[in-house]
């Protein structure tokens, strides 16, 4: 399975990198031609080519420039024994990740609680569920700046306001997935619990909760990706000094494209790692519970 996929994936990744290099040459060449024209020199394409890969502030940095920048701000920092200095991307990633994780845990708990309420109470199902869905058609990230500023005005700064945004973004997939999951036991099984004269609590722990776990992990994967976006956007409006979002903002103020790209790639790596981690935990739990494949 994995081996048959490996080759096509490598092909697509190679294609993306090739397009990236071509784009870097194409977009950065204008600058080189212009500066050559200013110096009254003729410049050939063969001369321009290497220069487009090594500009200080390129329009589009070449992949290896970004890789070097990432290595300089992570690996080298570890080698010098200062992995948590303010210049290191590890520090900034940690700031963002801690907000992400806190918000994700809060959002997941809120989502599960809401789903339990919705499944067990008709009133809640009919009155809350439509609003949960409506709340997601609202571009909630737009109110991120307000949440940050308002919470700062009542003396809440740092980790918590960012986590609130992450929480808001991650509770929705969990609620929807868990409502589906908690309702997934078959009528036969529910009837069986009924013949055992099981209380609602017993039915919940012994039937509903176990059968909802595959749904929980599927929606947690979506939720944690959304949490990371929330934490990054939460760092934008206040001019935060640390975190991946702050690196993006600082990079865009000072035209440091390499810095923007390295923060972006690192955010992508974080997202990939988090989603994979949740997926692995989910697989392991599902296997122990005897569920063969996660259903959507």
């Amino acid at each position, binding site marked *: 399975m994995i081996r*048959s*996929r490996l080759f*096509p*994936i*490598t*092909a*697509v*990744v190679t294609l*993306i990198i090739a397009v990236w290099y071509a784009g870097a040459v194409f977009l950065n060449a204008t600058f080189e031609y212009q500066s050559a024209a200013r110096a009254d020199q003729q410049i050939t394409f063969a001369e321009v080519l290497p220069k487009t890969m090594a500009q200080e502030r390129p*329009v589009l940095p070449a992949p290896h420039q970004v890789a070097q920048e990432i290595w300089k701000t992570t690996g080298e920092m570890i080698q010098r024994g200062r992995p948590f200095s303010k210049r290191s991307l590890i520090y900034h990633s940690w700031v963002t990740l801690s907000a992400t994780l806190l918000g994700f845990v809060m959002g997941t708990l809120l989502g599960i609680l809401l789903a339990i309420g919705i499944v067990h109470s*008709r*009133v809640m*199902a*009919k*009155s*809350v*569920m*439509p*609003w949960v869905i*409506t709340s*997601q*058609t*609202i*571009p*909630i*990230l*737009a*109110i991120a*700046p*307000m949440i940050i*500023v*308002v919470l700062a*005005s*009542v003396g809440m700064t740092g980790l918590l306001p960012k986590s609130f945004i992450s929480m808001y973004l991650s509770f929705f997939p969990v609620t929807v997935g868990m409502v589906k999951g908690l309702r997934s036991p078959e009528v036969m099984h529910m009837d069986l619990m009924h013949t055992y004269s099981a209380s609602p609590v017993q039915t919940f722990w012994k039937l509903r909760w176990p059968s909802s776990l595959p749904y929980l992990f599927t929606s947690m*994967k*979506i939720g944690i*990706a959304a949490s*990371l*976006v929330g934490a*990054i*956007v939460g760092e*934008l*409006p206040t001019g935060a000094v640390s975190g*991946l*979002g702050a690196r*993006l*903002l600082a*990079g*865009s103020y000072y*035209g440091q*494209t390499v810095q*923007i*790209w390295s*923060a*972006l790639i690192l*955010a*992508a790596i974080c*997202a*990939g790692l988090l*989603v994979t981690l949740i997926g692995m935990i989910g697989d392991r739990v599902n296997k122990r519970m005897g569920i063969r494949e996660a259903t959507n």
Partner: protein
Amino acid sequence: MQEPGLLIGCIIFWLAAWYANTRLASIETRSRTLSLLINLAIPILFGAAIIALWEGITRGFGVPPVILPPPSAIWERIISSIPMLWSDFVQTYLKAVVSGYVMGCTLGFLTAVLVDRSPFWKAGVMPIGNLVSALPIIGIAPIMVMWFGFDWQSKAAVVIVMTFFPMLVNTVAGLNAAGHMERDLMHTYAATRGQSLLKLRLPAAMPFIFNALKINSTLALIGAIVAEFFGTPIVGMGFRISAEIGRLNVDMVWATIFVAALAGSLSYGLIALLERAVTFWHPSMRSQR
């Protein structure tokens, strides 16, 4: 306590609404229209109760408007600044979101149809597309602002990139959704590739495509607004939010959010209606009973 009467009145209204909802939810009825009405009335009543409670608490306890303005103040602000809100709406929604959304969805769709021809590329594109859909793509906003300038073109570019991948992944998945039996049937008809695509596989892919359209309608608005945080001309919903929050005009921010919420919900509703018309055959569209 500034207006205890108002606070008490609102709490009574909230309790009454809660009680009414409990009664409404327990009504069993055979009539289709009646049950539809009940299902509409309950969330509306719930929403009204929340707004009443919001009004009562902010006015009753005298919460400073910088933290949370009461709904009535927000409404006054909306009414009094319609021209400004409209120009923001035109700049962000009609220019950036709509053009970016249409281009991004079309590109994603066309790429998916192309990729679908080759199992090799399909196997490569799907995992990568799924991964990219989980990435914080919104981060490319500063880059796009550098490339395409401050005006709406850069926002549309962000929207294109954000909407491209969900559309690609969903369409590729949808084109595989047609069953083997139906495909074999098309084969026995000696249908060409194009015919079986148009007559069988695209219609079968429609639920997936509409799913992507729905996801994208929210993503597009978010993308355009957040991209405006990185630099805009002095108009636009994202600009309004970041500028007014700097001046602590929280009611103006809420007014803009109201417009954004309205735009988001309406476009979502429009797509849902279209879906109902196009995929009327799908099991999820059948009556619940």
